[in-house]
């Protein structure tokens, strides 16, 4: 019973906050609602018995990405004001498209019979994760570091103020 209540709350928070993110008129408030949505997703990960992913979600999304977004909003302050119209002209079509997509996805989710297994999650997932990361997935592991290097160099070049 308890997991279902927690699931309901997390799902409600996540989706409610996400709706606020895309509809709020003040872009900075959107950013703070985004944090709430990320936190809701993190609690879903806990329910899915993936605590590592949950803390990483908080660490990366709330601790770094959200702060980066808030900084970017403050840097481009004029768009943060309320008087700018944040919605474009085709928003009604966008809303209908998104609702249509949701209906299709929902129909697929409910019509497919997912082949669920009843294995339980191992006790210490992190050791296994580390082992797989450094054996099976060692190439992606190294490539990730190259990707991060590229992102670092690229964004410093683009983002720096030129004298």
């Amino acid at each position: 019973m308890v997991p279902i209540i927690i699931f309901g709350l997390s799902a409600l928070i996540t989706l409610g906050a996400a709706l606020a993110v895309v509809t709020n008129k003040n872009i900075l408030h959107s950013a703070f609602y985004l944090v709430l949505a990320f936190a809701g997703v993190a609690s879903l990960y806990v329910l899915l018995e993936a605590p590592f992913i949950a803390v990483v979600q908080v660490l990366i999304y709330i601790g770094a990405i959200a702060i980066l977004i808030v900084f970017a909003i403050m840097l481009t302050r004029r768009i943060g004001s309320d008087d700018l119209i944040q919605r474009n002209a085709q928003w009604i079509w966008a809303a209908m498209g998104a609702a249509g997509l949701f209906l299709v996805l929902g129909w697929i989710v409910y019509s497919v019979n997912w082949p669920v297994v009843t294995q339980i999650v191992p006790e210490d997932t992190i050791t296994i994760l580390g082992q797989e990361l450094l054996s099976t997935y060692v190439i992606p592991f190294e490539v990730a570091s190259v990707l991060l290097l590229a992102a670092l160099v690229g964004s410093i070049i683009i983002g720096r103020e030129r004298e």
Partner: protein
Amino acid sequence: MADLINLIENWIKNLLLGWGASAGLTGFILQALGSVLVVMVCFAIVIVLIWVERKLAGRLQDRFGPNRAGPYGIFQSFADMIKIFTKEYVTPAGAEKGLYNIAPVLAMASVLAIWAVFPFAVNVIGADIHVGVLYIVAVGAFGILAILMAGWSSNNKYALLGASRSVAMLISYEIPMVIALLVPVLLSHSMKLSVIVEAQEPWFIFVAPLAALIFSISSMAEIGKAPFDLLEAESELVAGYHTEYSGMKFGMFYVAEFLHQFTVGALITIFFLGGWTGPMAVRWPILGVIYFYGKSLFIYLVISWIRLSLPRIRIDEMLDLNWRFLIPVSFVNLVAVAIADRVMMEFTLARWIYVLVMFGMNMFILWAALAIAEKNDQAVEREEFPPRPVAVPPGVDSK
């Protein structure tokens, strides 16, 4: 048995079960009671610490410190509490009410939340999760967010400037802190705090002194008090991000700062000073709790001593210290410890040889880093401020 804590726990459990509560509800109530107890102890500690800190500051600066309310002024904190609870809230015009009011609560909650995973004794452990270390790092993110909220919503230039400076500093120092934390994780092969504590034979401060040093410096910066108190450099930024806060809302930021310092003491205790371990701590768990809080208090006082003795450093110096010294050194240290640990694991060495090699290596890295830093520093200094004779006024050619 002298296991007082479990005795009380079992007594409550049996009492509740005797009243006809279900096992699930009993567990829930016990967990709630436990968390309320931990939070309340935190608040009680802060009340005492504020007095201790002020008395210590007074003594170190050749003053008396609080000495009016009660003997040695021990009731000073309670007088302050009565004052702050009856103070009027002044909300600045144009503040964004929602964010403005959430920020102090969030700041306090983010510090308190760290205490959920601490091991207090051999069998008194909060939540013994497998990702304990990362949890501690992740929860800190909410504190940064609270600062941004406070700074933005106050509708005050100083608050916004202070907040952006604070956040820049906090996120900068989080990098060496986390990398230093990787070292105890590496040495104990676990992120579980209880495992890290039990793996410390001897304490990790002897195995990885450099990581302990880096962690201490960077978490002192995270506290945001002197010598890293640039966020509330009174002469420049008024009071930083909480300029516009009054009454208990300001009090929350203040208490959070004190508790954060004590929490840093507890973290250093857990990661480098053996946590609750000590003589007889396994047989008498209550002793473990005493050791844990005692060590944390000791570290707290040492941090206070350091910050009362040192002047504030400039923001560019502070960022340079982080980016040009702490981060490179912590990376080098991590790599060296990883290689040494893994290589020595291949041979069956006596523990004392292992510790000696680790200690020597750490000291060597520290010495080398300091030597390189000094050399660079002198080069920079010579470039920027060429030496000139003392008695000649600037602008006059001395040759």
